[in-house]
């Protein structure tokens, strides 16, 4: 059997490269009667903030060609409820748990991390500096190089845990943002968060999502994600976690060839909540058929 485990640098090994994408798999417990959550190499939880957030008003989602827009607005139960209600489920998982964090200020990030550092069932943090549909503390952190550098450095000083910075594609030069994250001590870069998008109902003349401009995800953005992985792969040496439009095993191999060490499944969880099982089987078959011993042999190995 080929080896499908992956090492994210020296600090973190996953049994397989398939993670969930934040905000598309809840806290994992919602579908635990439907999907064996431990099939994933890691679970990434919905963006967590210090206080609960109710999120944006309706409408929050809209279908677009081979994709969707969302403006959930980082609705989440907040740090205390997370630890009280979700810990029992998450701490009992055999797979790794990555907590995705979103905050309005640097201080809020630090407070959340300091509290979570006491929890030994958490493996890593993914820092969401790229949410396109909240007013404060979303993408602003991820589009300004100076702000990003200061934040990453502060977070690195705060925790020794595996630190993933999640980047936005809505910038002129994503490679530069990735370099800043790397230079500031990030252990890995995940990308992409959603792409700016909008849609208008031509009869009501209302925007199809409440914030007018929201985040585009799904198969439509797969080539955009792939291009960004390629750019970042040649700019940094920390591992990349590829996200964006993955639907099946082929897409995962494509992203790994482009330079991703691991990947996240987002919108596909809505289209096919069982995707992970088929993807893992596909990867194993692909490796066997291509006579490859390990998935890690092909990271970034496309012909330039």
């Amino acid at each position, binding site marked *: 059997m080929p080896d499908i485990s992956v090492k994210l640098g020296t600090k973190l090994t996953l049994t397989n490269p398939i993670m969930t994408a934040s905000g598309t798999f809840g806290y994992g417990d*919602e579908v635990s*009667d*439907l999907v064996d959550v431990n099939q994933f190499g890691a679970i990434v939880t919905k963006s967590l903030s210090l206080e*609960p957030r109710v*999120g944006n*008003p309706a409408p929050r989602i809209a*279908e677009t060609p081979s994709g969707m827009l969302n403006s*959930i607005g980082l609705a989440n139960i907040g740090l205390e409820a997370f630890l009280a209600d979700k810990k029992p489920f998450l701490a009992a998982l055999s797979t790794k748990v990555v907590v995705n964090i979103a905050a309005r200020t640097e201080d809020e990030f630090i407070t959340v991390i300091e509290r979570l550092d006491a929890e030994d069932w958490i493996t890593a943090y993914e820092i969401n500096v790229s949410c396109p549909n909240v007013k404060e503390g979303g993408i602003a952190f991820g589009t300004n190089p100076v702000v990003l550098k200061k934040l990453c450095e502060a977070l690195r000083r705060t925790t020794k845990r595996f630190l993933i910075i999640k980047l936005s594609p809505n910038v002129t030069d994503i490679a530069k943002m990735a370099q800043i994250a790397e230079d500031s001590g990030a252990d890995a870069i995940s990308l992409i968060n959603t792409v700016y998008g909008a849609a208008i109902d031509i009869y009501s003349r209302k925007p199809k999502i409440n914030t007018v401009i929201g985040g585009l995800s799904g198969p439509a953005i797969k080539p955009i994600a792939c291009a960004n992985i390629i750019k970042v792969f040649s700019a940094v040496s920390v591992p990349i976690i590829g996200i964006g439009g993955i639907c099946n095993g082929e897409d995962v191999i494509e992203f790994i060839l482009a330079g991703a060490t691991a990947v996240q499944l987002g*919108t596909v969880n809505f289209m096919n909540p*069982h995707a992970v099982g088929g993807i893992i089987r596909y990867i194993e078959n692909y490796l066997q058929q291509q006579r490859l011993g390990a998935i890690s042999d092909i990271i970034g190995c496309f012909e330039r």
Partner: protein
Amino acid sequence: MRSLINGSVLDNRQIAEDIYRATIVTPDIAGAALPGQFINVYFPDSVKIFPRPFSIAGAEGSNIQLFYKVIGSQTELMSQWKPGDPVKILGPLGNSFEIPAPGTEIVLLAGGVGAAPLLFFRDRLYESGVKPKFFLGARTQNQLLLRADTKSELTIATDDGSCGSRGLVTAVFYEFLTGIDSPLTVCACGPDPMLKALKPMLENSNLAVYVSLEKTMACGLGLCQGCIVKNAGHNSSGDYSLVCRDGPVFNLRDIDFNA
């Protein structure tokens, strides 16, 4: 345990203007289904990526029934289902209508294809020995899901008067209400404006009103947080509920249509 499975189409036919009835063989879902619950229908390789939710309109033996109105691309695809075709479905999803305590009369109130979940509820009520009152409205007689019924006391209203009384079904229902002063549970499903129009009924303390809501859904599983409905002020469990997970059936008291 819910599961995404390949059901098989047993029958699929047009039964009214733009409205189809499909019977799908899917023993697990049929065995577990409760009235008010829904299933997701999945459309692989489609430009539209969301599964589509449909109320379970009946469950008997290994089969479930759907009633669906063709309004866009995916219901159009469904209208082409042929016996034997495999269909990817997941369910049962969501919560359900509950049979009220003995002594409380129950009334079903449906607009258009909103009758679907109530047909299933009627079946279960009838099986439990209750023959509910069923108020059914449609635009014209051509859009009625049923015209006569042995399992309920059916009252029909059509906008154009082509069958039953002329006008809104809610009007006929209000008329009926004026004669009632015993406890009553109303279970309603239909277009949002119809459900919204029931709000004043809450002033009558004898009435409990349950409504089944429809919202655009991306997942149907509580994963995406997309299908929100605003909680009414006195409900303290957070500002929004998820129609797919906390519903689709809500106590009308708990929700705020204006947001």
